[in-house]
């Protein structure tokens, strides 16, 4: 299907497939709000975030989820190969108006199903030393 070919027999559980650091700024949040249609002001207005008891503006969980899987997509070669992708939102990503926020994503091979040509990529996403996604797993069709 894709121009990139990965030999499933060459893979080992635990192999690192890639890592990437994403810098979320307020611009990223506004861009994601527009692209997704999620205009909840907790993602762009400090005063509103504080009024509902938050420490400040935070990233859309779906932005973190959507960015994290890019590590698996970049490895697999194309977005159409992700058969199944799930995460748990464990911690909010607070995005400072000036400094933004850094989310460091790492992907490893978690499971290999040779008969079905499926590989599970386990992703970790860390911001300010805290895991912001839990059980982030993407099944890739090879």
């Amino acid at each position, binding site marked *: 299907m894709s121009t990139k070919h990965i030999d499933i027999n060459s893979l080992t559980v635990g192999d690192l497939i890639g890592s990437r650091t994403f810098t979320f700024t307020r611009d990223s949040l506004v861009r994601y709000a527009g692209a997704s249609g999620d205009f909840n002001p907790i993602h762009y207005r400090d005063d509103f975030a504080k009024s509902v008891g938050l420490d400040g503006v935070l990233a859309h969980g779906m932005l973190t989820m959507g960015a994290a899987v890019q590590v698996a997509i970049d490895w697999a070669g194309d977005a159409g190969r992700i058969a199944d992708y799930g995460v748990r*939102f464990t911690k909010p990503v607070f995005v400072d108006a000036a400094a933004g926020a850094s989310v460091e994503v790492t992907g490893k091979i978690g499971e290999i199903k040779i008969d079905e040509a499926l590989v599970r990529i386990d992703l970790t996403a860390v911001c300010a030393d805290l895991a912001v996604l839990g059980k982030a797993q993407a099944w890739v069709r090879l």
Partner: protein
Amino acid sequence: MCWGSANFKPIWQTRAVVNINVQGKKYPATDPYLVGREKIREFASAVFSTSATSHDVDAAIAAGYADLVAPPTFAVVIQERSLHTVLADPEADIDFSRVVHGDQRFVHKRPILAGDELTSVLEVASVKSLGAHSMITFNTEIFDSANELVCTAISTLVVRGGE
């Protein structure tokens, strides 16, 4: 949507957070959503995707697709349309100012492509109590214009209990 949604109410307005009786309730199919190329490019850029098949039509076709490939989490846009029907349902009585996105999963039978016309059908899979909070899980099935299943989106929202 996560950590709250469009329909804001003051946090001090307390009430029962979710009506347990909506467990198993199915909501009617949404109007078709036509997936456009520029929408895919816009969404892909917003999630930091540089994947050629999401940006370049020739690359998508060379990879065997009919058109641009949406990132896997693009299905949330379709899921949202169904969630809004639940929001508007007085029977469900969900106070979305108290909602936190707990977890999310997308199971793709095939990727969403530019040109797809998608409808979605949402079912409330479960409503559970967790101390003062409620957890509500939605299964949203997304179909193409041939009525073939494209993706199932599974979303759990945590609704914080009243103080």
